[in-house]
């Protein structure tokens, strides 16, 4: 919520140091506009992302999680993103299976030269999460009972 009482999504973006973070940097230095709803966490590699990071983000009330790394074949550590892709495919399927809304947790590839693509990814993720509304499920300790089943959007 901002001062005017309007809800704005909080999205955590885990960006890999070598590609997506540099892509975000390029978007910034090129003055490309994109929604200001993301909070960036720089990680060495998308393979560094433990599914726990994603669940902890949701549990702490973030409205969305984005993980972005190098395109397949371009990983600084050769295969980190390939391993990550397998993990993410399973995690996304599992979360949506138990009822976490589709699109709360998203993944993308953005290279260091793709400032425009980075901005587009953020736009798409932000607009999707805006349509989902504030996160209510898997969130810990929201007054009024975060596990009220009717709270599901």
């Amino acid at each position, binding site marked *: 919520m901002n001062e005017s009482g309007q809800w704005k999504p909080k999205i955590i973006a885990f960006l890999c140091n070598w590609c997506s973070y540099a892509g975000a940097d390029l978007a910034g230095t090129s003055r490309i506009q994109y929604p200001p709803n993301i909070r960036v966490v720089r990680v060495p590699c998308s393979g560094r992302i433990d*599914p*726990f990071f994603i*669940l*902890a983000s949701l*549990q702490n009330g973030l409205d969305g999680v*984005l993980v972005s790394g190098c395109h*397949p*074949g371009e990983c600084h550590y050769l*295969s980190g993103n*390939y*391993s990550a*892709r*397998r*993990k*993410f*495919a*399973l*995690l*996304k*399927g*599992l*979360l*949506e*299976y*138990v*009822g*976490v*809304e*589709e699109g709360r947790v*998203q*993944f*993308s*590839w953005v290279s260091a030269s793709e400032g425009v*693509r980075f901005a*587009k*990814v953020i*736009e*798409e*993720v932000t607009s999707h999460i805006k349509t989902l509304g504030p996160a209510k*499920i*898997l*969130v*810990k*300790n929201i007054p009024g009972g*975060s*596990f009220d*089943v009717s709270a*599901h959007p």
Partner: protein
Amino acid sequence: MSQLIHEIKEAARDFLRDGEDRTVIGFEQGSLPLQSRPCFIRKENDLERLVWNGFCKNNLAGYLPKRKGKIAIVVKGCDSRALVELIKENQITRDQLVIIGVACNGMIDRNKIEADMDGESIVDVEEGEDVLTIKGTNSSKVFDRKEYLYDHCKVCTNPVPVIHDILLGQRDSNTPQAPVNDTFSDLEDFSALDGKERWKYFTEEMNKCIRCYACRNACPMCYCPECFVDASRPQWVGKSTDLSDTMIFHLMRAFHLAGRCVGCGACEQACPMGVDIRKLNRRLQKDVMDLFHYKAGCNLEEKTPLATFRTDDSDSFMVEP
């Protein structure tokens, strides 16, 4: 059945006579009817304790990680698959093992029988090929064996052990020897529900959980010296009674078994609260099959899916602006 027990004992006897420092892991009669319990036999004189029946539900592979010495182990289909995964993960070596495989007819769920006994205590049981005659305190009842199997036994696609040194109890040659792929038809109803309904079900199930971690303790694949739920630096899972902590425990427990879970049902059998734990594991088994064409525990050569990758794995779930 008595012939089968005799054969198991003979195989175990041969094994014990072969050398020093040897253990047979099998089943003995439990203290109540309808219960067999794991037993460890080191002397020939104790071999008489061994039994085999429809109540040998435990997955004995769970006793193997980092065990020393020579071991003979009695395994069903699911136990043998867990064994394969444990060997692949270097928890035990194949040379240490003499695997006494028993073709399984499914294990009987004691809770299902008790629920249909109208409150009578069970005194004795007589197990036939297709029926069970249960003697209660006042009456005796006949049960159709197939209907009272564990849920995971009902969907089991390879009851015959995938690796073995001796194979016993093969009733007919039509039973598939090689692993058969699963259709996951038991998941269709749940997957067809909308997100809200699935969340409701998941919430209700998680509400039952008392976080005793029996599911983890019973799982043959959960052998980490320190589990993530016990770690305090960092503390991966909160210790509060908030349901989100319970959910994260279950999601991560299932996730850590992705591509490793053999579907033996040990978690669900151990659960004192009747939580539908296998729902999560089954989904991951299905995804692992659909995405990576892998079924856990089927052969010793293939790498566990999350320990490897292919450059042409699907990207279809990712944001593509």
